[in-house]
């Protein structure tokens, strides 16, 4: 036989090498560092030290409490909002959708920043009414996390609601089921697993989020804050790594459970049938609409406050409007912004090419080889950004690769790329499934080689997924904070880190200006993506 037995292998080789060097290697570095003492001998002392400091068990407890309350809260509100979007006759659904997009475009700390400006000790509400507001601590963190997690729950639950065809409701109604019984008997069973999947996702994200905690957490210390203090404050990498492993365990568990839930998820009927047209039901619409409007309004007001703060002279004392914060108020200028854009473009470009090759190659590998590789490609979802970032410090600050990578844009791009590798890979894989096998065979029979198969059969079907994956990576890289916080150096600033530094130093207005720029860049990218996908749908090329 002239043909190679594993024709997919050359395609997956480079992406796999990337995963090993830039994902597995840092991850194992963290694990190793937590298991050795300063002399380098294997020990469990680091784990014993966890209990020496009473702050650490308390932080762990705080993380679990905030994770659980945020999860329950976002599920309840998210279900209402998704129902309002898909099972009501509410007007203005587009406005709610638009408001829910906003948190996805912003670094998580921007919501915290908005809350501080609005409800902090010196916030807008206090200034206007004189009420003694103080948002720092549990409630502030909860609010910021709720707003951050809500859109993700709505997206997942909405997808499940859209997959339920109208005929199930027609059947239930024809048998005399009331709207409430239809909800219990038709809707709930079909979104059960989506709810579980969303719950595990939000729990994991809240548990590992750093941005909100650093801005509004105040004295309510959580694990992510402790890792940051150990590494940046006390240079205690061993302790940071140990805490990272501690954070990794529940994150791994919840991602694994979330995957199980997603796999059990009802995939919908083969024939979706006609779209559901909800019946007239004013009370239902009023209740769902109330919750949805409140949620959307909270997000808009919080982010609106950030934009407002960005255009006042000296927050909160001198509130005359000015563009000074955009024109010169930033100590480092727009440099970090430019670095962020460049880094994100690099991460998105390399990421999409790599993930495309990986998922196209995996289709050509036998199942026993492809399945473990798929798990590896999806594994980064279970690794908190902070743990990965710490791993990069441990793995690349010394050793052979450090001369090229230390303090470079490339290493930050790699960290962003592999932090968000799993969703990118899953998007691309879903796109690849749309490629008809017959088309790939047709190219081979017509006389084409692998290059032609990819260009003529795979790409036309996978292009929308590739575009989505590219912009997803770009937007996430623009706003990521937890993964890159350890990687920035004096010479290498990033937009999201600048927001945090300005906020830490009390420069709220310049911080807000910077945050607004980041959100605007995200919005532009989102617009570009929609435009591109839209034109692609109409595009035909005559070869």
């Amino acid at each position: 036989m002239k043909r190679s037995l594993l024709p997919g292998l050359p395609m997956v080789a480079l992406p796999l090498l990337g995963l090993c060097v830039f994902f597995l290697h840092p991850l194992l570095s963290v694990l190793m560092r937590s298991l050795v003492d300063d002399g380098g001998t294997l020990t469990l002392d680091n784990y014993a030290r966890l209990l020496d400091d009473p702050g650490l068990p308390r932080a762990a407890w705080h993380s679990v409490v905030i994770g659980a309350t945020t999860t329950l809260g976002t599920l309840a509100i998210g279900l209402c909002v998704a129902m309002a979007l898909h099972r009501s006759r509410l007007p203005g659904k587009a406005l709610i959708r638009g408001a829910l997009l906003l948190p996805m475009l912003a670094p998580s700390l921007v919501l915290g920043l908005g809350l501080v400006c609005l409800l902090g000790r010196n916030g807008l509400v206090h200034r206007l009414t004189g009420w003694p507001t103080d948002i720092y601590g549990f409630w502030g963190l909860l609010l910021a996390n709720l707003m951050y997690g809500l859109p993700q729950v709505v997206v997942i639950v909405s997808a499940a609601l859209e997959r339920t065809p109208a005929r199930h409701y027609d059947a239930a109604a024809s048998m005399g089921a009331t709207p409430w019984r239809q909800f219990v008997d038709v809707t709930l069973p079909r979104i059960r697993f989506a709810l579980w999947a969303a719950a595990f996702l939000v729990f994991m994200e809240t548990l590992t989020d750093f941005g909100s905690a650093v801005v509004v957490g105040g004295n309510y210390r959580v694990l992510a804050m402790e890792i940051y203090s150990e590494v940046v404050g006390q240079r205690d990498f061993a302790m940071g790594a140990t805490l990272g492993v501690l954070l990794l365990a529940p994150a791994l568990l919840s991602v694994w459970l979330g995957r199980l839930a997603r796999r059990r998820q009802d995939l919908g009927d083969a024939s979706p049938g006609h779209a559901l047209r909800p019946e007239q039901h004013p009370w239902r619409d009023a209740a769902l609409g109330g919750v949805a409007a409140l949620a959307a309004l909270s997000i808009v007001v919080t982010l609106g406050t950030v934009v407002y703060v960005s255009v006042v002279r000296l927050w909160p004392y001198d509130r005359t409007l000015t563009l000074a914060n955009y024109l010169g108020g930033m100590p480092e200028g727009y440099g970090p912004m430019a670095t962020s854009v460049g880094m994100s473009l690099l991460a998105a470009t390399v990421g999409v090419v790599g993930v495309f090759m990986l998922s196209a190659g995996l289709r050509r590998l036998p199942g026993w080889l492809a399945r473990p590789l798929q798990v590896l490609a999806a594994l980064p979802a279970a690794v908190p950004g902070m743990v990965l970032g710490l791993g990069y410090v441990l793995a690349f600050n010394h050793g052979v690769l450090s001369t090229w990578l230390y303090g470079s844009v490339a290493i930050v791009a790699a960290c962003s790329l592999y932090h968000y590798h799993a969703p990118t890979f899953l998007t691309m894989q879903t796109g690849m499934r749309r490629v008809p096998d017959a088309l790939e065979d047709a190219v081979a029979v017509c006389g084409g080689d692998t290059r032609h198969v990819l260009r003529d059969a795979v790409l036309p079907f996978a292009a929308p997924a590739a575009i989505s994956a590219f912009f997803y990576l770009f937007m996430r890289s623009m706003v990521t904070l937890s993964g890159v916080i350890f990687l920035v150096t004096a010479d290498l600033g990033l937009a999201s880190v600048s927001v945090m530094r300005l906020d830490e130093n009390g420069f709220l207005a310049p911080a807000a200006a910077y945050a607004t720029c980041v959100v605007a860049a995200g919005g532009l990218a989102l617009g570009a993506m929609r435009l591109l996908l839209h034109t692609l749908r109409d595009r035909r090329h005559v070869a």
Partner: protein
Amino acid sequence: MHLRIDDITKAWSGHTVLDGVSFQAGESDLVCLLGPSGCGKTTLLRIVAGLTPPDRGRVILGDRDITALPPRDRRMGLVFQSYSLFPDMTVAANIGYPMRLRRESHAAIAARTSDLLARVGMGDLHARFPDQLSGGQQQRVALARALASDPAMLLLDEPLSALDPAIRAQLRAEIRSLQRSLGIPTLMVTHDQDEALSMADTVVCMNEGRVEQVGSPRCLYERPRTRFVAGFVGKANLLPTTLVRDALPAFLERRPPGAEATFELCVRPEDLTIAADPHGEGVVEELTFLGSLAHARVVWRGRSLLVELPGRSTLAQGEAVTVDVSRGAWVTT
């Protein structure tokens, strides 16, 4: 060109899908691989196309062993069941694709494309995109593209299965006449016995990875060799040897030697004649009117028989009848 399949064997993860399959096809014949789904016929076609390597055996085209040749060097034209046209290329671009891969001149591609378009009756639709065509039109384009590479052989993988019955019948005739006029050897996979009987020069009837019988459509229908072929190609009444000995002793003399249970007599519904007779041994259980024909289910000597009658037959349900058998073929069980 002459195709020879020699002892092809293939297993997927321990499950044998093809078990020593051998047959030959004539110079410009249309050969149908007929069998139920899962019998291995598509795997065999893919092995001939070079898309799947066999575990054992040889594929010989003309006097060349092509078993180890990659698909692009085999010069096969392949038509799939569906979804094999490039969605972002026009009809003309789809047909020109194999020629472009071989870097033929623009003029040559244009000339050949318009010739093929005319042959499949799609000349005025050359600028359309696949999603603007009906299923039948898409298959015509796929056929034209398969012929564009000037193939040594045409391979059709259930090309009509995804189409409406009316279009299917029309395309059947078109493919057949196109294949005859080009004289191109063709291998077609189908699970539809009507398709196989009406189109093929030779039918290879397959079951569970083995060849059951090879022969002309008529031969398979009139002289099935196995119980499977008798039941899969057309409708069959299978009568055990004991019953034949009691009721139809005349058929015994052509029975091949062997134990009682190894052979059964296959009687086609149209080879049974029934006539109303109050003393007859059969009873009409059920009548199905089919227009020009009618099917009767007759209980006779404890067995249920399917009998074909003219549509105008005046027999009624519950009537007693005599049963007469005009011809039958012995099949192995």
